[in-house]
């Protein structure tokens, strides 16, 4: 579509994110929440909605919801009433979903996102409420019936509802990245969109720039990756603008995104939508969050990505790029932070963690907790390089691989064992330099005739002779002096 036409309109986007909580048991019963169990094995009379059963709230699910609220600067609701959301669908055994309606546990927060130009923008959070997941229905081709698996029914969720502060699909993407980072730092959800433990619906509308009233919003569902959320939003914005340009009216409806075509298509119009008839859930007592409870959660809060980002850029003076890469996951950030407790060469520590450490983990598909070296060992390698005992190449090519295989070894001992302690003793080096120059009289003559590029070749010979142990900086300086004096 013409950029000129697109530019006439202002898209308005709000996101609803469902996050499956990493509790051991379900929200209101003890069934395990394990992913990938055989169908209909993580069940109970409560999950199956048998008459006479009573739900009982999982305390951990409440802790997790409060954590997310604190991480997103929300107010925590002290008196919570659960509600029933009534509708009939085979994957909802009770005929209602237990959720929160009037009293979401968290309200009025915000998440700061980074825009492409480096600016920060706050996306406001309307509410975060607790609810339970539904089971899974499968409509297999060729089957005349629908198959239902209740393993997921009753798994605790939080739904994070943003204000319509998002103005394009890049901001939506950045917001989701931030939400995923937060739930993973808090260890309350694994953040896996492909497996459905993080799900996102987008409310999209467009209006002419400068208009004072939002356009009619359309809800888009069915996106199973961050990239697809972005594609779905882009498509929906263009579709709506094209309709308005053609003089058509946008209807309030729910549309599904098709990842194969990149298009959205109508699922149901809001008019024919369910009337959920919310009312207070009589089977659950009110949930009251005391000061003590809130204090306990405050004390359990880990450092959050933006706090570590600020520490790494301001306190450690790292480039923004480094800070971004290092804070991507909590584990890497914490590992780096620990390396920095043993060295003050923060940039070198960052290079080591972003480079050799991360590549090693990626190559072997390991988690940071499985990395064989202690942060102090990385700091020791850095200090050996900084004190010119070993050169950087030897450190990355020899010492590091040796240490990950022999993690009990000290870096210095490894350097000695591998005979990598470098010659920075001037007299010894001068001896090697002389030897190389004497062995290559022809090249020396060419050098004197003006072929100064031969310095590199002399350096190479010296490195060969010393088996790479010559400190390159000192050697280069001494070699230059020698050549000048010839």
């Amino acid at each position, binding site marked *: 579509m013409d950029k000129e036409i697109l530019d006439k309109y202002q898209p308005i986007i709000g996101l609803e994110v469902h996050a499956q909580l990493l509790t051991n048991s379900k929200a209101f019963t003890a069934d395990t*929440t394990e992913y990938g169990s055989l169908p209909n094995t993580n*069940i109970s009379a409560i999950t199956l909605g048998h008459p006479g059963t009573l739900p009982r709230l999982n*305390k951990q699910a409440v802790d997790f919801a409060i954590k997310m609220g604190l991480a997103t600067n929300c107010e925590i609701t002290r008196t919570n009433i659960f509600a029933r959301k009534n509708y009939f669908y085979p994957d909802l055994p009770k005929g209602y979903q237990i959720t929160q309606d009037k009293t979401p546990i968290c309200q009025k927060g915000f998440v700061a996102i980074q825009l492409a130009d480096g600016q920060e923008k706050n996306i406001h959070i309307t509410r975060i409420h607790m609810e339970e997941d539904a089971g899974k229905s499968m409509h297999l081709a060729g089957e005349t019936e629908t198959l239902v698996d209740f393993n997921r029914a009753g798994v605790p969720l939080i739904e994070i509802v943003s204000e319509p502060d998002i103005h394009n699909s890049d901001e939506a993407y950045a917001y989701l990245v931030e939400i995923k980072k937060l739930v993973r730092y808090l260890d309350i959800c694994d953040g896996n969109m492909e497996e459905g433990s993080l799900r996102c619906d987008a409310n999209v509308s467009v209006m002419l720039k400068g208009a004072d009233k939002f356009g009619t919003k359309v809800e888009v569902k069915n996106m199973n990756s961050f990239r697809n959320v972005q594609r779905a939003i882009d498509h929906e914005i263009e579709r709506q603008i094209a309709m308005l340009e053609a003089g058509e009216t946008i209807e309030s409806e729910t549309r599904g995104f098709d990842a194969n075509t990149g298009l959205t298509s109508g699922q149901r119009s809001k008019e024919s939508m369910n009337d959920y008839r919310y009312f207070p859930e009589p089977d*659950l*007592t009110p949930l009251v969050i005391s000061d003590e409870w809130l204090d306990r959660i405050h004390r359990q809060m880990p450092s959050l990505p933006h706090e570590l980002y600020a520490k790494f850029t301001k306190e450690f003076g790292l480039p923004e790029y480094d800070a971004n890469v290092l804070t991507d996951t909590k584990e890497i950030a914490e590992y780096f932070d620990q390396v920095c407790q043993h060295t003050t060469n923060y940039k070198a520590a960052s290079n080591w963690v972003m480079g050799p450490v991360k590549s090693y983990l990626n190559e072997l598909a390991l988690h940071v907790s499985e990395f064989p070296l202690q942060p102090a060992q990385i700091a020791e390698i850095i200090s050996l390089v900084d004190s010119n005992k070993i050169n950087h190449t030897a450190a990355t090519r020899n010492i590091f691989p040796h240490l990950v295989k022999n993690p009990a070894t000290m870096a210095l001992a490894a350097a000695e064992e591998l005979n990598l302690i470098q010659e920075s003793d001037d007299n010894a080096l001068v001896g090697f330099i002389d030897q190389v120059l004497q062995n290559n009289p022809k090249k020396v003559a060419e050098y004197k005739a003006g072929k100064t590029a031969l310095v590199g070749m002399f350096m190479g010979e010296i490195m060969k002779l010393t088996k790479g142990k010559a400190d390159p900086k000192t050697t280069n300086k001494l070699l230059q002096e020698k050549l000048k004096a010839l």
Partner: protein
Amino acid sequence: MNIDIQTIRKLAHLARLEFDETKEQEMLQDLNKILDWMDKLRELDTSAVEPLTHMSEEVNVLREDVAFNAISHEEGLRNAPKKDSDYFRVPKVLD
């Protein structure tokens, strides 16, 4: 407040109930009686009264997050009108 037969039909559909014409009329009258009574209650000023959502004073009846599966797969499926070895089977539904 009074409701009409259309509202009765909508409510019946939402609750998946079916009434014949006589029953429909009965329901209409009953519901209207209930709503009249609600109107009577509404004459009282309750603006300073917290909603009574629960009859008991009890709060925070919680569970620790300990997992165990209380019933077996077979027990869970036993009362299902239709099933196979893995799943509950229901008439085909599409969103």
